[in-house]
């Protein structure tokens, strides 16, 4: 079991990443709290020794995404999650950003994960495939399709590569 100091350090370092992934998966506050508890408890009890910070971050991303998916499937989760919550947040953004925000959140879940990991976390397709445990060709396909969908929604004014 990990120490309290180690755990607090991990919370400080990765809680923003966990929070963003919760946002990508449309969690409400109660669900986000559940995800935080699940992910960091798993970390405390985990005996995995990380090779470096990147390895540790990838572990947090994978565990958070899996926890979000489990919660989405769960019968007991709060059913107050709504796309409207996310869309409301876009109201304060400048118009160009608002369009992108709304286009990203209108993508199906499996595309949203890869788009977020690719554009925000700067992961390549092979890295995403390792994190999500999917075939690299599947990730290439998902990325290509999500770029096409974003282009259809936003037009050619943006650089997608």
């Amino acid at each position, binding site marked *: *079991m*990990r*120490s*309290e100091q180690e*755990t*607090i350090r991990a*919370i*400080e370092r990765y*809680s*923003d990443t*966990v*929070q*963003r992934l919760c*946002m990508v998966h449309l969690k409400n506050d109660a669900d*986000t*709290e559940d995800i*935080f*508890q699940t992910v*960091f*408890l798993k970390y*405390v*009890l985990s005996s995995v020794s990380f090779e470096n910070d990147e390895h540790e971050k990838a572990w947090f991303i994978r565990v958070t995404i899996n926890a979000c998916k489990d919660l989405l499937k*769960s*019968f*007991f989760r709060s059913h107050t999650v709504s796309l409207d919550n996310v869309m409301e947040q876009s109201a304060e*953004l400048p118009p*160009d*950003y608002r369009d*992108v*925000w709304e286009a*990203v959140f209108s993508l199906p879940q499996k595309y949203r994960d890869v788009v*977020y990991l690719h*554009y*925000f976390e*700067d992961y390549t397709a092979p890295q995403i495939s390792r994190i999500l445990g999917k075939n690299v060709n599947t990730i290439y396909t998902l990325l290509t399709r999500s770029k096409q969908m*974003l282009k259809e929604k936003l037009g050619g*004014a*943006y*650089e*997608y590569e």
Partner: protein
Amino acid sequence: MNMNDIFKKLFKPIRAKEELKNQTIAFLAQRTQGYTTTTVKPHRYPLYATVCICFLFMLFGGHWLYFTPTAEITIDINPSIEMSINRFDQVIDLNDFNVDGQKLADSLNIKYMNYADAVEQVLNNDTITALLSNNEVMTITVTGADGQQSAKILSGVEACAEERRNTYCFYASSEEVADAHRIGLSYGKYRAFLELQLLDPNITPEAVQEMTMREIRDLIGHLSTDSENNSSLYDNRQNGHHGYGGGHGRGWRNRRTEQQNAGE
């Protein structure tokens, strides 16, 4: 504009609240008992909820099984009462069809009793025995969608009524009973009403409602011009206790008799 830059601008401001971090730290300390134990009890609420759902399912399922009537026994003499019987042959409800029926129902304590004991109690009731000894006519009608259960109940009721004079047992379909209830009559009276209506089209259900079975039978006898063709229940009683027939030939026993005749 580069999509990577836009994503950075969009997602960078999303930060975990300090309150959430502190709650998580407190939760972890509590669940690991100050980082001393690795045996963390899993959340129990899904288990509790499952147990509760199973319990509720059993409760409502059991309630439905027990409190869904599968057969009915209607007793008519005036008073007229109707017992609802569940699949376990127990009386789950008792309805009355007129003022006398209400008085009789109030004096009985047959709810949740086996139907045979309940019928026995009704037949031994002072009001009923007094009426029967006064040469009144009583009909007992068994209704139900489950043919097997209805046949069993009918034979049980027949056994109860065997020693009683002027007591007749029938089987009726649910549709016939529904027709009877629609005009506010118990089934026994409804049969007699139909018979009477053939002789006097002006007769109304309301007029029949407060008449005793004897009065109805007497009226039928009076109105009938051809006593030999009168297939009334009252006349049938001359043949013994169980004049299953009436004029409509829809009784359980009538069906059996018709089938036997057809076989012959």
